[in-house]
């Protein structure tokens, strides 16, 4: 199983029945593939659909039904079309139960940086700042290191996405929960040791007695 699949499978376990969930583009969108059948959730895309479904069969695409990345999608029974004011009203107003986003850095305060690298990459924040500021739970799904360099750091050096402590970090090596006391290591990846996680992390990790190995959906 590659790193991305491990992450997507682990994040899928965070999705509970009845939730309204926003999945970011890329890795986070893979989470939808690993949900148990008995979990009844609505996926929201910030461009304006609640009840996002799978890709349509070829030839059945609709130019007016895409996800936030512009890819063709379908709508499940009971879906709703909303405009951007309602879409972000739901996000900022705390109606979104969970958002799963990628990350460039997360620090010991639980702050996320995921929208720009000054001088290199300035794509714009899109909906990320509203999602991180407003969703009930913010789960960051990312590979643990970037070209060997830790992404979980003492303090973000990149511009922050929001002044909000995120809820959970899921990487292929670990599940880490930001708390008021700092970053608590909750689980390690398949075959990964606590020491290996610590080596790949420049932030201080709080290691409690029991660190379980990740369950995967």
């Amino acid at each position: 199983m590659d790193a991305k699949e491990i992450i997507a499978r682990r994040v899928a376990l965070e999705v509970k029945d009845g939730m309204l969930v926003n999945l970011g583009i890329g890795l986070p969108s893979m989470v939808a593939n690993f949900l148990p059948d008995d979990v009844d959730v609505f996926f929201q895309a910030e461009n304006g659909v609640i009840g996002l479904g799978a890709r349509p069969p070829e030839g059945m695409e609709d130019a007016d039904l895409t996800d936030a990345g512009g890819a063709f999608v379908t709508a499940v029974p009971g879906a709703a079309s909303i405009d951007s004011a309602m879409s972000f009203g739901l996000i900022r107003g705390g109606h979104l139960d969970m958002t799963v986003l990628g990350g460039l850095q997360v620090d010991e305060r639980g702050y996320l940086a995921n929208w720009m690298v000054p001088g290199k990459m300035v794509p714009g924040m899109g909906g990320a700042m509203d999602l991180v500021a407003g969703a009930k739970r913010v789960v960051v799904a990312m590979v643990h290191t970037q070209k060997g360099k830790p992404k979980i750091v003492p303090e973000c050096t990149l511009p922050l996405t929001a002044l909000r402590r995120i809820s959970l970090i899921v990487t292929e090596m670990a599940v880490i929960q930001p708390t008021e006391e700092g970053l608590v290591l909750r689980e390690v990846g398949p075959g990964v040791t606590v020491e290996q996680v610590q080596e790949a992390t420049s932030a201080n990790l709080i290691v409690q007695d029991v660190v379980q190995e990740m369950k995967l959906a």
Partner: protein
Amino acid sequence: MKRATKVEAAAELIPEGSTLLIGGFMGVGSPHRLIDALVERGVGGFTVVANDTAMPGTGIGKLVTAGLIARAVVSHIGLNPETQAKMISGEIDVDLVPQGTLVERIRAGGVGLGGVLTATGLGTPVEEGKQVVEVEGRRFLLEIPIRGDFALIAAKSADYKGNLEYSLTAHNFNPVMALAADTVIAEPHTILPVGAIPPDAVKTPGVLVDHLLEREH
């Protein structure tokens, strides 16, 4: 009653240097015929307020390629390398605004609010230069209204009173932009007789729409 306008005549209404609110999300729900007519005409220097600049060859991306945009107020340019290159070269002045804040600023401009308070952007570069207002012990950014000289919006259908319906994820910024410009030009896929759109289905009341483009051929 509104007589439908030819797309070339609608484009002629728009002077050089105008501020344009343009609907669409990665090109979905953008007024494509109007954009093509603007490119054909070649008058530019526009300030464009929109969710994004789409991709080269799509929607607002065509205005970027044609060099008609002097300033862009958008949430995201990540999928249009031309916009990024023109931002770096200084040809386009890019103002990045969080997506939820952007839609609320346009709404505020449309519904006569002097501004709105949001936590989105606090502690990030978005905070720079903005008034911070405290309400019941919590800090918020004061975000001020945006209005356009013109709103260029797309719709699923119109009637000859200008009432508009939208489709699925092609709603996005269109309904809010219809509130916030001195002149609103709507590009519907089809135009129905007055009375054919039930009152409960109208998302943009016709009184907001100044010009209606002829239906597609």
